[in-house]
């Protein structure tokens, strides 16, 4: 049966291939062609600039940057991994790195810089950046690319209209609610738009209050801790205020859309979106600014400050046929020079310590100055984006049940219990 299937398959494919004729591109120029797969079109030029800097020094190499949008990226990467056709270099996200690393699909890069400096990673990248490139075994499976933080974006005109002072370093959750109420009373516009999101929402509040989504062991859920529960209750209840849109509203209108169409005064935004928002909303220039996240006024533990920080890395296949050459390219991508070029392109904040300002300086091109420095200031107390290898399983259950809490289908307490069970059960089932 199996033989028959195989014979049928070969017959079919060869007949079809004959029909189509040869379609494969040859590399007649004698150069080594590498492919570099990314998912963000906005960063294509920046990535190309980094590649060009490398190929300028190594004219025998050609690197082609290819973009696939986020939704298809992972389906495709997994398919290429199964058939051993992975791109030579690709972006890796913290959501997925554990899966790829633990199944041996991406190359162990722990020794990448051993020849020049065995301490290279520790010297030049933060602890958060390094946790984002580790497999479950603690080894490094990528070269840190960038790092991000979450900040508070606000509408200055609405603050002025309500006679409220702009958010600053000393702002707390109370100030956030207070300002929201005043703005709603004075202008009829929404205040802080507390969207039911994790990274751009409640995670920040939970960690500010000293709670955890995952406990220290990174396996057990933290939804049984009073600090976590209190912060969740605070965040979820924000939508009960008149000044905050409800989850139905957000299902149709993202907080960003609402903010830039001047329907609301504040929302949480990742630094990676700020540049394109400056470019896409010319009429809003001068009307908005960014600030650090407000802190928790009476945290259960810690100083009340936190912001979620995530970061991408560059990775390569464990079995690529150009592995040695690719490693050399990756060494360059992680070097000071490679990271600087990336930062100057404006795409993202380089992971390399000391180059954060390259991204900030990109905003000098605009006449209107945003306080973008607040995003890099927040690295001081940033918290690594929540992740473990069971996250794909529990993430859907958590987000589904969060919606049920919002719509009143389950109570808050039931919801917390479901979150906790989902996280713990995902680990047990494996």
């Amino acid at each position, binding site marked *: 049966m199996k033989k028959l299937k195989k014979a049928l398959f070969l017959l079919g494919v060869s007949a079809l291939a004959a029909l189509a004729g040869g379609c494969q591109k040859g590399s007649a120029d004698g150069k080594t062609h590498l492919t570099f797969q990314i998912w963000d079109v906005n960063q294509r030029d920046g990535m190309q600039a980094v590649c060009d800097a490398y190929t300028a020094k190594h004219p025998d190499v050609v690197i082609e940057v290819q973009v696939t949008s986020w939704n298809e990226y992972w389906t495709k990467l*997994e398919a290429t991994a199964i058939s051993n056709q992975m791109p030579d270099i690709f972006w890796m996200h913290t959501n997925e790195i554990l899966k790829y690393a633990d199944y041996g699909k991406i190359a162990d890069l722990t020794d990448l810089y051993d020849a020049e400096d065995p301490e290279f990673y520790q010297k030049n990248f933060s602890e958060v950046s390094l946790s984002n490139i580790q497999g479950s075994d603690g080894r490094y499976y990528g070269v840190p690319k960038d790092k991000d933080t979450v900040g508070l974006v606000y509408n200055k005109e609405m603050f002025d209209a309500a006679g409220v002072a702009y958010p600053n370093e000393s702002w707390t959750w109370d100030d956030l609610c207070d300002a929201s109420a005043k703005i709603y009373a004075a202008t009829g516009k929404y205040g802080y738009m507390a969207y039911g999101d994790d990274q751009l929402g409640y995670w920040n509040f939970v960690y500010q209050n000293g709670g955890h989504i995952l406990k220290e062991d990174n396996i057990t859920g933290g939804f049984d801790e009073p600090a976590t529960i209190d912060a969740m209750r605070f965040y979820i209840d924000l939508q009960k205020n008149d000044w905050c849109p409800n989850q139905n509203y957000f299902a149709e209108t993202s907080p960003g859309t609402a903010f830039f169409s001047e329907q609301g005064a504040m929302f949480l935004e990742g630094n990676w979106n700020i540049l394109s928002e400056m470019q896409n909303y010319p009429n809003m220039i001068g009307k908005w600014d960014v600030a650090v996240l407000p802190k928790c006024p009476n945290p259960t533990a810690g100083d009340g400050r936190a912001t979620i920080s995530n970061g991408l890395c560059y990775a390569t296949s464990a079995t690529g046929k150009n592995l040695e050459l690719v490693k050399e390219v990756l060494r360059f991508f992680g070097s000071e020079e490679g990271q600087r070029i990336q930062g100057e392109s404006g795409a993202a904040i380089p992971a390399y310590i000391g180059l954060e300002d390259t991204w900030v300086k990109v905003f000098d091109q605009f006449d209107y100055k945003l306080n973008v420095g607040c995003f890099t200031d927040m690295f001081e107390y940033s918290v690594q984006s929540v992740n473990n290898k069971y996250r794909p399983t529990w*993430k*859907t259950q958590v987000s589904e049940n969060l919606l049920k809490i919002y*719509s009143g289908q389950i109570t808050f307490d039931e919801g917390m219990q479901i979150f906790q069970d989902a996280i713990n059960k995902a680990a047990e089932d494996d």
Partner: protein
Amino acid sequence: MAGNAKSGKLAKSESMWAYLMVAPTVIGLLVLNIYPFLDTIKLSFSKTRPFGLYELRGVENFVQMFGSPEFWRANWNTLYFCILTVPLGILLALVVAVMLNTKIKGRTFFRAVFFLPMVVAPAAVAMVWKWIFNTEYGIINTLLAHKINWITDPNIVMITCAIVAIWSAIGYDAVLLLSGLQNISKSYYEAASLDGATKLQQFFHITLPMVSPTLFVVLIMRLMSSIKVYDLIYMMIEEANPALTSAQSLMYLFYRESYVSGNRGLGSAVVIWTVAVIGLVTVVQFWGQKKWVNYEV
């Protein structure tokens, strides 16, 4: 049949031609579609791991699936979607096709208008409609002067999806039906007119029986694709929508299990169930066609 009268040699040459003529399609289907389906069957009985790895486990995925309220909800949602879209959609398509087949003025224009939705990329369709139905700034709510939650109210969301589905499908179905109508010889109508039959009588006694083979294809196809509905709902309803559970179809559930939660095995079980449902519905239709589809033999 003609074959009875033929000699054995002729019958043999007939079947030789037949095999040659079906060969490309059959081989293609085996390679492109049946083989992946066998793979899906295998996975539905397995505990799956990333990167195509699996361990055969028996029926545990099915046990989990049948025990899940989400699954039963998805069945109901899919059934509801079919009830909303199939009868009305096909009826409207038939009316459009019949009218486009008459000699009215501006026929070319109207035909183009009804086929227009087919030439828009599906992503754009969902985007435009979501926007038209938007609670806050959508044109429909502005015209109605009401704030109806077209996309987020669990009781309304399926109706919204159905409207968009019918809008997008009417052109497809009308094209197929129109081709069936055009295969009908005019001489039938001429003869009927001479006998004094009204237009309505002509429709029920000539048009409907003559177009029934095509109508049957359209019905089969529309029902199948409605049971398999996924793209449209996926693009209309985002993960953050509180009405998600009221709009999640079987194939949407498959997508979320397989690709979002990474449970390929359970996802495959949902596919097997869906295919079984479609199979059953199709068998019933083939059995039922004898009662209303008119073939010339």
